[in-house]
């Protein structure tokens, strides 16, 4: 089983809202004191791949299209025991659109060879547009299933479990396939062991530029699919009324009264 996992580096989504600031010119968040981290769903994807490899064997390649610090994402993936990694440098392109990302990833995947399974996160914790997986599948001419949380190899093919609106669905397909991965209690990313962190620096990490992938700057420039024309922090003008009373009993009674009033309006 040859699996490729795409990983994205993002601004730490746990940055408190009060520290969140927008750069008006670039229409992006300012990094400020926030860390750059691996998008959580990409780590869920890697964990899903690792568990499948542990069961059926094979090799996992981690792929990232990112900026100056993106190597950190791949070193962590290697420390989580991915076998090898490839980094495509974004070369100054900021916030490329989903189609540009899909085209870059597809070009890198073709250069890396044949894979049975290509995994991406369902969406990113920064922009969260969630279009890359589907567009990548189209670029590669492969079928695609979203919101997958578990993968089994079965004979020549694959069995994918995905979350639906009402429960679960099982899909069967032959490889290759693109799956977007969502979080589940079974794919919570592992914490790398100290030894594996040290080993990660000895594992192969290929670095490419746009030119290495024979991509012209118009494709990689990333403004032909969509463009963010405005980014703003919505204003909330709501003031929470904390229930009052002399003791807990009175405060809870007040809360019950308010809740009951809203519930009455519903029924």
């Amino acid at each position: 089983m040859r699996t490729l996992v795409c990983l994205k580096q993002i601004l730490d989504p746990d940055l408190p809202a009060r520290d969140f600031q927008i750069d008006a010119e670039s229409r992006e968040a300012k990094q400020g004191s926030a860390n750059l981290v691996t998008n959580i769903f990409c780590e869920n994807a890697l964990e899903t791949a690792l568990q499948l490899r542990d069961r059926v064997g094979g090799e996992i390649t981690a792929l990232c299209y990112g900026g100056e610090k993106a190597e950190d994402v791949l070193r962590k993936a290697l420390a989580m025991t991915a076998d090898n990694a490839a980094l495509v440098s974004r070369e100054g392109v900021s916030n490329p659109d989903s189609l540009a990302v899909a085209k870059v990833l597809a070009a890198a995947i073709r250069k890396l060879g044949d894979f049975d399974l290509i995994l991406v996160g369902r969406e990113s914790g920064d922009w969260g547009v969630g279009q890359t997986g589907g567009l990548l599948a189209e670029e590669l001419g492969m079928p695609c299933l979203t919101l997958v949380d578990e993968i089994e190899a079965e004979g020549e093919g694959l069995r994918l479990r995905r979350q639906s609106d009402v429960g679960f669905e099982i899909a069967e397909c032959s490889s290759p396939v693109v799956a977007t991965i969502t979080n589940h209690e079974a794919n919570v990313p592992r914490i790398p062991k100290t030894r594996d962190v040290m080993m990660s620096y000895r594992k192969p990490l290929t670095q490419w530029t746009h030119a290495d992938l024979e991509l012209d700057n118009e494709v990689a420039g990333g403004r032909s699919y969509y463009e963010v024309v405005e980014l703003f922090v919505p204003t909330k003008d709501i003031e929470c009324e904390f229930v009052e009373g002399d003791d807990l009993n009175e405060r809870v009674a007040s809360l019950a009264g308010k809740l009951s009033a809203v519930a009455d309006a519903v029924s």
Partner: protein
Amino acid sequence: MSIAIVLFGEYGFDRAVAGVIGCGQALKATTGGEIVAVVIGAPAGEMTSEVAGRVDRVIVASQPELGEYQPETAIDAMKQILAPLGASIVLLGNDTYSQEVTPRLASRLGGSSLADAVEVKSVNGAVHAIRSAYGGKAMATYELKRSPAVVWVRARALAPAEPTGAVATMEETSVNLGEAALRIVERRAEVQEGVRLEDAQIIVSGGRGLGGPEPFEMLKELAQVLGAEQGASRAACDAGWVPPSWQVGQTGKKVAPELYLAIAISGASQHLLGMGDSKVIAAVNTDGDAPIFKHCSFGIVEDYKNVVPLLTEKLAEMRK
């Protein structure tokens, strides 16, 4: 400039369908043109007449292979029906199936896509869509550069379509479908009591602060006296305390009930993104500075263990 609305017949006519058509009607007020509803799979219940009363034209592909959603087949069918229509805007919005097809359909039509839009508008001939960014900390307006603009809207939060007073023309169509490389072979619905979370009028949700699965039993009693459905934060679902289908948030269910009661949920922006459209939000939390209170109409700063049993008892008395 026409607007196509893609619907799945198996869903029937529900709040989401009304919302996505409502979005189309609002757009049509600026763009003109006609609204064409494309129904994939045999329409369930009164869907045909409900839809026909709200759009200008209805195209139905009801062949049996389209009856139950299969991603590869659905995308193929949509492409075949939509390509000759030449609509400049394609709207989708009934839940995860249509979210799944959105980028791939855009790719096949040579267009651009965006998901989870809360507003779509036409600005000097360009299509703009607004959605959240940075886990709900910001909102972003996107210009979709290619045509058609294929946009998945957060349909349940949009104003529902009103009947136009006319009845649209109906056409049956059929498509050529090949063998799908991927097939859904099993669908398992979790045993669900009551209504779907997305349709619930009142929701009681629990979060990380509950500390384990047992307190959800306590919340169940509270939900019962309020006539509420139960939800949870991502932390509670990832911990395995409750099933993933309970998850409310950016990556879970997007809900907009009349009342949302958050218990031991701090209000991470990814959670707020799933329930921020609720009419009234109330919270129980030990931390008065928790972000959830910034979105609450009212709340109480107290340990849920002290509040929930007492609250359940008082509500039970009030609501006999």
